[in-house]
């Protein structure tokens, strides 16, 4: 009987795992000893980090998308058939079509979603760029922005921890280029007591903000937004007026995780080094949907996927596995329209960002294009 690998979620983590395993077990796929199936929500693969550039007209929408069937190795079965229920006891997943997919090994890679509805007034009163529709609306709002109070508001938890700083620095450059800085006041809000989760990044960004005249409110967790009065309030008791509000909404994991009783808030309890779901030996979890307390980022999904690929390949070829994930995260940080920096860390090594440079900005732009090779497992 063929061994079945099922991957739920065809975003960054799911695609990298599927392609990475397929590339290494060509012989087993050919003989039919193993088959790989991916089920996803959508026929198009979205490169989410590219959304950051949409509001500024720095990327064409067509560059953000590829057909999923072209991103996946052609030996992989792909179905647009969202999972409705994942049964880890019976080793099967029931999908929207009613079809039941059974498996020997399962990879859960269903990512995270924006919860704009949980904060009163957010959906009506705020802009965001974390999905295409939001990024388009923000692009329109920015095009007609003629000065005023901008609030950039980050909420916990969210993916891509560097995005709040990046959008702030890029927005500053964008409005400088449009000659609107003297008519604009920036306030940046952040949930904890400094302006970024990573201490050295916060340490670097604070004097930069002060130099640019960007105000900040720390310990700011949004309680409500009043779209009529154009005010945003925090649980800590602070209210700020705005003309343009750009939010990073709070996130949760996919609905199917809660519906299948696999984790509160859609976060799947996951062993931080083996990446197995707690309580299962044949279920691996990658990317945003784990409950591991590290950054929810594409690079995290990628490094986790590398570990899961090696282990699945070993299982299929040798019947055992031993690779452990070390908590590695690597993030490029745009520090304006023309400069960038990067930061990496793992469970043992603290982050230590390098000074921003134009070269690192170019690397980030280059990576945006190379992503498609990396998702195919060619890089």
């Amino acid at each position, binding site marked *: 009987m063929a061994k079945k690998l099922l991957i739920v979620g065809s975003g960054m983590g799911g695609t990298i795992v599927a392609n990475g395993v397929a590339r290494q077990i060509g012989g087993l796929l050919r003989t039919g000893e193993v088959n790989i199936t991916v089920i996803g929500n959508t026929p198009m693969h979205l490169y989410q980090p590219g959304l950051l550039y949409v509001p500024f007209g720095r990327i064409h929408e067509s560059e953000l998308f590829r057909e999923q069937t072209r991103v996946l190795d052609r030996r992989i079965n792909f179905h647009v058939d969202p999972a409705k229920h994942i049964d880890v006891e019976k080793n099967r997943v029931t999908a929207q079509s009613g079809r039941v997919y059974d498996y020997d090994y399962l990879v859960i890679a269903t990512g995270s979603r924006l919860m704009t509805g949980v904060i009163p007034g957010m959906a009506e009163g705020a802009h965001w760029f974390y999905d295409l529709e939001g990024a388009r609306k923000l692009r329109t709002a920015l095009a007609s922005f003629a000065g005023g109070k901008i609030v950039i508001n980050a909420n916990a938890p969210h993916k891509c921890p560097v995005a709040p700083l990046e959008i702030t620095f890029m927005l500053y450059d964008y409005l400088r280029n449009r000659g609107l800085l003297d008519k604009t006041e920036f306030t940046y809000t952040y949930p*904890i*007591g400094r302006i970024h989760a990573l201490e050295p990044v916060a340490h670097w960004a604070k004097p930069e903000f002060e130099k640019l005249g960007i105000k900040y409110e720390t310990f700011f967790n949004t309680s409500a937004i009043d779209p009529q009065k154009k005010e945003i309030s925090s649980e800590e008791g602070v209210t700020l007026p705005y003309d343009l509000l750009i939010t990073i909404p709070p996130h949760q994991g996919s609905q199917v995780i809660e519906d299948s009783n696999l984790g509160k808030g859609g976060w799947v309890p996951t062993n931080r080094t083996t990446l197995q779901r707690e309580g299962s030996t044949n279920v691996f979890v990658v990317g945003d949907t784990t409950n591991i*307390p590290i950054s929810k980022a594409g690079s995290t999904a990628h490094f986790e996927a590398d570990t899961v690929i090696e282990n699945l390949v070993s299982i299929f070829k040798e019947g055992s596995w031993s690779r452990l994930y070390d908590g590695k995260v690597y993030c490029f940080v745009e520090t304006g329209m023309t400069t960038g920096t990067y930061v990496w860390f793992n469970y043992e090594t603290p982050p230590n960002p390098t000074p921003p440079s134009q070269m690192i900005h170019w690397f980030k732009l280059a990576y945006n294009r190379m992503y498609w090779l990396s998702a195919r497992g060619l890089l």
Partner: protein
Amino acid sequence: MTERITVDARGSFCPGPLMEMIAALKLAKVGDEVEVLSSDKGTAADIPEWVAKVGHTLVDSTAHGGYWSLVVRKAK
């Protein structure tokens, strides 16, 4: 029934223990407790400072060898 949720944030540089505490409290019910384990000594000061601002209750803060445990009860 109230619950206690434990988040082991030792070795978590980003998003870090306080952000984990905030995220876990959002999913908790009033009266539930969230315990965060942290290897970052700043947390022992940050979490109580935030809890006081927002009005939850700090139930416990204990230094163990090399890590700290902080327990917060959701008050609203």
